[in-house]
């Protein structure tokens, strides 16, 4: 699986959405991406990419697009 596929899958699993819907997702843009969903998403991404996200990054992770930028800091290339 490519990193992009792994990343997309994390959203699909944690937020119960379809892969085709992830591109424009943002925190609180859908009911599933509330605090609880955010927790689940962060946990899934950490597991999938074997990383530990900094608090600042967890707080800044506001959308699917922004998330990609953040993950590059952890050597995840898309």
């Amino acid at each position: 699986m490519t990193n992009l596929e792994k990343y997309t899958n994390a959203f699909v699993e944690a937020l119960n959405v379809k892969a085709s819907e992830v591109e424009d997702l943002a925190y609180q843009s859908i009911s599933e991406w509330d605090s609880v969903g955010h927790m689940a998403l962060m946990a899934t991404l950490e597991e999938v990419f074997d990383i530990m996200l900094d608090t600042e990054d967890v707080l800044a992770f506001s959308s699917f697009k922004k998330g990609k930028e953040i993950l590059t800091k952890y050597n995840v290339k898309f």
Partner: protein
Amino acid sequence: MVTYGELHSAKQRLIANIRERCLVFSLCTNSVGSVVGYAGFITNNIVPLLLNSNIDYESLQNLISVYKPSYLWLPDCLVEKFTKFECVYGEFNYTLLRTNFKDGYKLFDELALLMATSGSTGSPKLVRQSHKNIEANAKSIVKYLGLDNAERPITTLPMSYSYGLSIINSHLLAGATILLTNKSFFEKEFWSFFKEHQATSFGGVPYTYEILDKLRFYRMELTSLKTMTQAGGRLSAKLHEKIAKYAKENDKNFIVMYGQTEATARMSYLPREKSLEKIGSIGIAIPGGKFSLIHEDYQIMEPNIAGELVYEGPNVALGYASCGEDLVKGDEFRGRLLTGDMAKKDEDGYYYIVGRKKRFLKIFGTRIDLDKSEEIIRVQFNDLDCACSGIDDKMYIFITNEALRHQVIKFISDKTGLNQIAFNVKTIKEVPRNDSGKILYHKLTKYWISRA
């Protein structure tokens, strides 16, 4: 920022539009408008039913038709859903709507406030509280937490939830500064607000502390923070210890508590100095309250024997209401509450919850009735049998029709207002029942027992 003087004037302006004692539905947010409404209503003999502003429309309509409130007080953005009601007043982004019900239900003289018992599985069951209840609980909280007007709590829980409301009540009584925000811990704005206004305390349910743990908040510089309280379910022993240690090492207070809407809010607390020694304990009864343990008709006096936890105190609510006619009922509980929780006490007189008598779960702090959940799922979906069980923060829904899995999750998530992650649906061939048709829940526990 709103001073107490301004709050008083704002209340008067709002109340001038309501001519007499009546029932108002107040859709709450952690905002000035919401607090002005709540404080205005209860200090002017008007009875509010506090609901979360994110309540689903159908449940709200159901409550309106059951209780026939004379007014609604709600955020401006929700007004468009009620075209039949008249706009009478507005301030702080909140609007007062007059409904079109001709006669309201009669209200018991001492009735001050109505609260929902659980996170709306659409149930119209409410708890009736008196002025005496609210005042007694607030006074007790001020006493055991040592609150004064230098406190600056920041809101982290809904105002329509008895725990969240008790934070507001107790701090209003102490004349403290309440930092109102609807932001969550995951938003930068929450922390900048926190630091800018030097918050001194906050409360949280177990899930709140899971989030804080994930955010590694122990590493944050929160010099103004003095006190953290926890209620709404039991924290895992590991997390309790972690937070208690953090508090001890940083000269902060961590206070675990226990309560129910049926007791206004709080019944017990674990004193800060015991937070590391008595992990898992709910502590001792609050000032003015008393605990006892019963088994059938007799009282258990010995330590380490479990029984049903009974609480006595001036904060025990009047009773429930399931329909409009119930609003005229008087004091049914008479200061004594059978909590429905099984507990024991240790040799030092500290209490520990060991189980639940009733079938409900606490999910992210919200009480969800399992029987009611089963009922609404069965009514909604004809082609399946269903059983609901599980543990706090995770409901297991057993269904007999795999094809309906996604619809069931979406349905129950929408109805309860809880994230889908709270629900785990398992398809089984048939729901285990005994000869009289009762569901044998103990046969289903194997699905999660390894995870607990």
